[in-house]
């Protein structure tokens, strides 16, 4: 999997760059984030959880069966919302209370 960064949304805060465990994200001369090595993304979603303007989304590569959906997270207090945009325009959402443990 890899990530896609929406250049127009990015406000250049640099948080995604700071957090990436592979140092894969850079800021260009206009202070817009881009992924320097898309093939090197581990898919940990750390950058996505940091972005204050939800400019980063992740997708599965076609080689591992990806079908074009894009995922991002939004935080509301203790709730982490996982939002999945499908290519057909439908949107699904899973809400996770961060104060709640996994059941399994």
């Amino acid at each position, binding site marked *: 999997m890899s990530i896609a960064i929406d250049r127009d949304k990015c406000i250049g805060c640099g948080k995604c760059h*700071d957090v990436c*465990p592979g140092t894969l994200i850079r800021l260009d001369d206009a202070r817009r984030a881009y992924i320097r090595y*898309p093939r090197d993304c581990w898919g940990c*979603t*750390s950058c996505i959880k940091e972005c204050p303007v939800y400019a980063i989304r992740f997708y*599965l590569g076609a080689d*591992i069966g990806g079908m074009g959906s894009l995922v991002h997270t939004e935080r509301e207090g203790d709730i982490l919302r996982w939002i999945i945009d499908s290519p057909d325009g439908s949107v699904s959402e*899973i809400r996770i209370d961060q104060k709640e443990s*996994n059941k*399994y």
Partner: protein
Amino acid sequence: MDIKRIKTDVLIIGGGTAGCYAAMTIAERSDKKVVICEKAHIKRSGCLAAGVNALNAYIVEGRTPQDYVDYCRNDAAGIVREDLLLTMSERLNAVTERLEQLGLVILKDENGKYAARGNRNIKINGENIKPLLASAVQALPDVTVLNRVNITDIDVTDNRVNGAFGIGIESGIFYVIEAAAVIIATGGAAGLYKPNNPGFSRHKMWYPPFNTGAGYAMGIRHGAEMTTFEMRFIALRCKDTIAPTGTLAQGVGAKQVNSLGEVYETKYGLTTSERVYGTVNENQEGRGPCYLRTEGITPEQDESLLKAYLNMAPSQTLKWIESGLAPSGQNVEIEGTEPYIVGGHTASGFWVDTKRSTTIRGLYAAGDVAGGAPQKYVTGALAEGELAAVSVVEFLESNDTSEISEGSVQAQLEEAERFLGEDHSLYSTEQLEEAMQTVMDSYAGGIKTNYRFNEKQLDIADRKIRQLYALSDSLHADDPQELMYIYELRERLVVCRSVIAHLKARHETRWHSFAENLDYPERDDKNWYKYVNSRLENGEIKIILRDITERGTVYEHSD
């Protein structure tokens, strides 16, 4: 390159699970100065980046630390260090409580006790486990964290560590860090073998592709004794997403079934390696693909699984959603990963004593980089971080001094500057990395050969890996991050050589798939109930066979 010199009491290489906990322990017990060098940023670096699903090592009500030791020993067919496992197991519950104090959410039962998942696991929300550890470390006044500093080597004279060298992978600064003691906590090694999906998703692997075996390579190069590299770790994972399967197997009790719907796990046995082996065999005999049987689970279980995976391996949840079917509607296809070297799952790594001291004076190892104690997982890595830290505090009382000579600084600096110099290389670092992975895949028991190998193949692998190392001498880097990639490739090649030597040394098959030697397909307890250790002497790997440290005894470094 600009040089920055730092002097500290303790250097911790790798600000991951074990490294962070070691720093916290030193700060609690002394006023010593600590520097952590982390190649990424401690907030989300290493294994814990995406979060973890459960604490896999915990002594639940009614069980004892010795029970945990017995479980690990059985899973590894005896080749473990019981003294290391016991000292670790005794700390598991205390470090868990500390995690809860830091803010980790742990599920409790009606009596306020941690709710168990099976005999050894407890349930958590582990999404933010690394940020919690990182904030605790960042609050410590005597601990300095240097993020984005990749340590390229340690400095050792007369078998005493003096510190380490590093490069600022964005600043391009060359670091010389002198330290009275060093804790190495760089994790294990991924990327040695060709991965499941070598194309666009090559890094969608289980183990972090950024843990490249640096610590092992540093130990090997400086003649530290290393152990059990032949016990590779191959994970059984969800196909494509390479997401963990434990949540399905232990969480909702999903069984391994073949394409005929037959439960095959009982046929091969239930140890970690047997579960992989069974899957490989079912495929080979024409009964693939294999699955974890989730069809028919309840809607509540579906919902919980979708959430649990988002907390640790979000791509699997995406996979379910994109396919339009939840786990109750389709079994989850499984496959074995490429082999990794991970001392927190199997027993590979530095040969340490119960203080987590390596055979190099002043150098301690903790977590996935340390050998002898498999099934450490998160809590075991924390426990070893603590044990190493306690030993370091004690060691510092001896006031044993150390110094990095100007000669070694210049040699290291020249090497780095040579890679950054003029570009004469025909090959790129990436090409040599792919070549290495292809060699390991074809000749050292990768996915291609169903993890099997023979001596002739290993000889070819060894020759080719040496050739690639020689080729890597003339690689070129345009910037400091590419320079790090050259060092990463070279450390992987060093680790590959040792893995090959160890695979060749053990003349038996003790663990299917993990070390399946077709020249010696049987287990041989008479001759091989032993540790296979090694040490680099004059550029050659010398194999050392050692007797098993039996229950109730403790190994101490002497020769």
